[in-house]
């Protein structure tokens, strides 16, 4: 069964269509990146999924439960980490988690065990007596993630979890997210900074001005946008010779200089690519680097949103 199914939701604030007929699904065990510039409607979409906002039209099904028909049951299946949230002053990490564990109806030994488990998972164990107001941003994010996992939800929705984290905390977050995916949870993670998501997501949904522009695996979107691959070649000869050699080959277009070599768009399968390399060597071009095909989330995003970014 699909873990999270967003069905044509629309939300209007006054005259502004913050979310406009957005639909997508997230499967169990997969990590979906939700990308778009600031004000694209990511937070609004996520808050609708988390029952915190009502859509004007459409519905969201969380693990088989509609957020409109049974918000309470949907909440139990869902963990939401808002982009900015407060923490109670004068409260230690353990007390904070214990409070939410109580709020989720955990009792007695089970409560203590669950709190211990989520603290161990997020490596907060040694800090359990620390007051929350003294924590760093990265620690607070981990604490909130720990809180989100207390009731073992099937779907986790994290709104800009990597914002404001130092590189080390970001790597730690990525590891936690991957571990959660491996546990079979469905994750929806938003960001307006693409590199944050690139390494951890199986797929992405791109949103801008409330409209979903693309949805799918990173590679699929890439292929649908540009049927050709982008290749990079560096050789032991001057660039003009290299360019001339390349342009005589079939399936090559849009040759341009980059770093110390050339980049070009190539249409054709791997077999043809291997023959191309052979012929280049035969022409005496002597390639030292021949690489490409790497799909960059950044490029997808730029080509999708080009028109409206400025």
């Amino acid at each position: 069964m699909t873990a999270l199914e967003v069905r044509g939701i629309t939300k209007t604030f006054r005259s502004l269509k913050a979310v406009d007929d957005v639909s997508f699904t997230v499967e169990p065990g997969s990590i979906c990146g939700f990308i778009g510039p600031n004000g694209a409607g990511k937070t609004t979409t996520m808050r609708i999924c988390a029952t915190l906002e009502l859509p004007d039209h459409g519905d969201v099904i969380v693990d088989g439960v509609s957020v409109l028909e049974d918000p309470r049951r949907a909440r139990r299946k869902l963990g939401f980490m808002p982009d900015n949230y407060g923490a109670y002053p004068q409260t230690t990490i353990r007390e904070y988690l214990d409070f939410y564990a109580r709020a989720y109806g955990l009792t007695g030994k089970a409560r203590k065990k669950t709190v211990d488990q989520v603290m161990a998972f997020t490596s907060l164990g040694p800090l359990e007596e620390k007051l929350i107001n003294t924590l760093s941003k990265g620690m607070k994010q981990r604490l909130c993630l720990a809180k989100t996992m207390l009731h073992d939800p099937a779907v986790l929705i994290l709104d800009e979890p990597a914002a404001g984290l130092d590189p080390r905390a970001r790597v730690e977050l990525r590891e936690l997210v991957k571990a959660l995916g491996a546990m079979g949870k469905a994750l929806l993670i938003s960001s307006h900074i693409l590199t944050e998501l690139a390494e951890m997501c199986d797929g992405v949904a791109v949103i801008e001005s409330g409209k979903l522009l693309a949805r799918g695996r990173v590679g699929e979107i890439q292929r649908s946008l540009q049927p050709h691959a982008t290749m990079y070649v560096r050789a032991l000869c001057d660039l003009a010779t290299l360019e001339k050699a390349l342009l005589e080959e079939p399936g090559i277009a849009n040759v341009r200089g980059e770093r110390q070599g050339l980049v070009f768009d190539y249409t054709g399968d791997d077999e043809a690519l291997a023959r191309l390399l052979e012929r280049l060597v035969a022409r005496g071009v002597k390639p030292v680097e021949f690489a490409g095909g790497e799909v960059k989330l950044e490029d997808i995003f730029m080509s999708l949103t080009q028109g409206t970014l400025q």
Partner: protein
Amino acid sequence: MTSETLSKPGDEPAALGAFLARADDRLNPILVKEVRQALRGRYFRNLFWLTVVLATALGVFMIVLANVDGDLDELGTNFFMATFGVLSFAVHTFVPFWAFQSMGAEWEENTFDLLVISDLRPKQLVVGKVLAATVQALLYYSAFSPFLVSTFLMGGVDILAIGLAIGLSILVSTTLSFLAVALSTLGRTKIVRAALAMLLACALLPVSAGAIGFATMLVQAPNVLRDRDFQYAVAMFGSVLPIVALFAFAIGCARLAHEEENRSSALRVLASAITVVTLAWAAVGYTTFFRGEEQFVIALVGAGCALAMVAYVFFATEPEPFGRRVARQVPSSRTLALCSLPWLPGGARGLALLIGNALLTLLVVGPLALLEGDESIVVFTLALYLYALVVVGLPSGIASYFVRTLRGRTAVRVAIPLLLGLAIFLPSIAGMLLDVHAWMELEHPLDPFWVLACLVDLNLADAGPGLALLAIGVVLTAIVNAKRVGNAVAEVLRCSAERRAREAAAAQATHTTDAAPQR
């Protein structure tokens, strides 16, 4: 399960531990959190010690003063007034205000969303905040108990009077905390919250002062305790407070609930409860203490209707169709669905509630009036509820044709009392201009209060034009509301039928799976 296996017979500490663990699990999570925070925080501790020191200082001052004057008879009373004065401000002002702030902090500190998406129910949230406030109040009472005991030892103060003062004070403090939390849920923006805080402070300070006045009256003239009218008033007050608290509780819960949830039915039941309780007191009073005093019944019926009017204005301006979630909760039985109609959400169904409560009132008041042959009660009640129907039903009925947004509904809610005010005061201004003396004195057919007053005196000649206008109003109200009332009834029947169909389908499904061969 685990706690059971832990506690072997005769193993007292383990049994106690298991009991404590179970009790701990039952505790309201909000209460646990608030107490932990309060104990670590400075705010409560400082305030607490400040009041205790202040009470001690005032008490000592009273003793010194009494010694100087040589007037020792009054010592107990004065000492009580001094210490109870401080206590009153603590439990009737500080504590409810803390509850207000504590609820508001969830929005101000941006922690509310995380609370809402947890498994906590709105009622646990409200009760948790009130319980935390009550724990503080109890700490104050226990800190002040030595003072109160010394008061008694100094003599001159009736123990019953102290008991009643403290008992009522606890009831009032708890009710105020409920009201404060409910008030706190009404606004989330800074400006609205500041206004609400001011409003609360303005309401709490007089209550604290009033409580001091009441307690002083009790200790200075304890004989009043044996006065039947006084007992009656205290009993009535004591029975109304819990309903007010419940009402505040229901408002708080409704405000915190998800928008698709049923946020109206509990309040509607309480509006009916207000009517029932005032009627019960009217009936009991009229047949016992105030036998034959129709003014008493009229006052209570009027008060009950006026209290519930506030609620009717809200009910009658609710959106007409059910939310998706409420639609599924309509009883499957046709009869039950129709019987529950007035208590289900929706504007037209709000009018049905008003009419239902009116009929109930007439059913109780009618026999009472027959008993004493006092028809003015019946005439008054009938006219009162017809006025209520027109005042609420006419504007909300017209608005129901074009108002669709929350803002529009809020505007209608504000407009209804304003329109009533205009109907009363515009003719009096016209009277000034046209020099019609009676109009200036607010004696004109558009003023319901004057018409009702005429009816109580059975002065039909004066009330005549007003009654004619009322009749026109009732007809207009019926016309503008006919469609939405029809739709409201049809919707209830449809939802009920849909539920029957769903249940039949579900039964069918389980039947077929039961019939399927077992693996």
